[in-house]
């Protein structure tokens, strides 16, 4: 049992882990933003997000390698598929359940059902093996002892551009409306906002973000049918650590989470990492259920 890593905290390791942490943190920030956009607005514990993530990756690599479409086009199709899937789940499943007076627990269980059925369906169609998006190898950059690749840069840039975009959209008509709905649903309806439409909007934006995250992931790694669970869990962790309904701090929480995960590598063997991260979440939720970045309610 090697709980403590033998590597020790050499400066070059710390630097490299900081750089990995920035990349991982940006990725988690994007996941946090994605989950938060949906959860803070609709209060749906959207576990099926994991399926949307997986579907985006598989549609992209399916169209690229089977239909032979150019990779950029395939990625766009993958993203469209994510949005369509996310919105369809809202319209076909959640909305009708809400209408028939389902509890939030009931909606969560339906969502859980989708998150089980979806990836298994993908496995039946594509098989269980990992599959790569047909993109070339990235260029390697070395600064001092620290290395990173084009994909690392792409991940960081795309993540923050998307996060910035969503935060900027908060000033738009739709953005303002979705803030209003998450702040006070009844009053929003009273000022003429249709919460139903805002929900669809939230699912579209959230799905676009999670789809983008899936594509960023597949640049580097093979897609597998079960790839979705972990990122969505991390998205939820970021959302809950940030404080529910706190869209602005969810990416920050995600980023911190990524940094913590990466830097924990200085002392910790990978085999204990998940246990430690989820253990921390467990404690954090007990100690500060309102979130670490949110002051206790007055």
């Amino acid at each position, binding site marked *: 049992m090697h709980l403590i890593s033998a590597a020790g905290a050499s400066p070059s390791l710390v630097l490299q882990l900081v750089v990995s942490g920035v990349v991982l943190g940006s990725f988690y920030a994007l996941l946090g933003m994605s989950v938060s956009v949906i959860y803070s607005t609709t209060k749906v514990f959207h576990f099926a997000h994991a399926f949307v993530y997986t579907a985006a990756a598989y549609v992209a690599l399916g169209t690229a390698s089977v239909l032979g479409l150019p990779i950029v086009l395939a990625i766009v199709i993958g993203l469209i598929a994510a949005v369509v899937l996310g919105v369809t789940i809202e319209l076909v499943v959640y909305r009708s359940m809400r209408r028939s007076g389902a509890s939030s627990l009931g909606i969560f269980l339906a969502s859980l059902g989708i998150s089980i059925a979806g990836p298994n369906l993908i496995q039946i169609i594509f098989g269980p093996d990992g599959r790569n998006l047909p993109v070339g190898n990235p260029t390697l950059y070395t600064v001092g002892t620290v290395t990173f690749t084009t994909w690392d840069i792409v991940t960081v840039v795309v993540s923050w551009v998307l996060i910035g975009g969503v935060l900027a959209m908060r000033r738009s008509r739709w953005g303002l409306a979705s803030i209003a709905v998450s702040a*006070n649903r009844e*009053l929003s309806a009273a*000022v*003429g906002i249709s919460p139903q439409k805002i929900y669809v909007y939230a699912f579209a934006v959230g799905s676009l973000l999670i789809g983008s995250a899936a594509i960023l992931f597949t640049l580097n790694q093979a897609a597998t049918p079960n790839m979705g669970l972990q990122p969505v869990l991390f998205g939820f962790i970021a959302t809950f650590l940030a404080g529910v309904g706190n869209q602005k701090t969810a990416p920050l929480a995600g980023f911190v989470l990524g940094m913590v995960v990466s830097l924990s590598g200085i002392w910790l063997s990978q085999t204990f990492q998940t246990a430690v991260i989820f253990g921390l979440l467990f404690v954090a939720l007990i100690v500060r259920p309102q979130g670490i970045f949110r002051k206790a309610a007055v």
Partner: protein
Amino acid sequence: MERSEKAQATTDRLVASNLVCGYGKHSVLHDVSLTVGAGEIVTILGHNGAGKTTALKALFGLLPLQSGVVIHDGQNITKSSTASRVRGGMSYTSATSAIFRDLTVRQNLELGAFTVRDSKVRAERLARIHDLFPVLKDRGSAVAGRMSGGQQRLLSIGLALMSGAELMLLDEPSLGIAPSLVTELFESIRALSRDAGLSVVLVEQNVGAALPISDRVYYLRAGEILLSESADEARARDDWWELF
């Protein structure tokens, strides 16, 4: 009701007939009919739990009706969504959650005009509300929930006005604010009604403040209209306890 049905059809901004509604099994309004004319301020009085708030929500479409008809400006809106009622010139200000507490004053007012697409119109309205309630201009970037109760109340009225409503449904605007402010607030409502032809359905417990600005009064008890009379008649009353 004194006025004839025919006259109402042309001059009445809102006609509600035989409303029945409630929450699930809990039936609150049993058979409520009321009318509001253009530029008229109508006050609904009654004890708590009599169904006043429910009546406003029913008029605004926030609660599904079990039966009854609501006609606004000659249009049957019984089945319309709240959003389309807002576009049709109706607004509703709740007694308890009338503002977005976590947003700024400015954002609140912007949201009030959510159905207005023309930015020029929005700017005009904002200017008018700033004239009307200067404090909302001064504290534009303040978080609404951190302002005093009175300021929050003003904001809620401003929010309702931003939509360009011709018919305001106001639920206890005097709740939780100082008596001096109440008078001021009610005066501005009166002024809006007089100058801009605004129709108001007012639910108030503060009879003393509401009556001076009202045209007509309905008394509601246990979900039924007990009595309807002109505000002058109501002011002359000495037996209010009996009606509550």
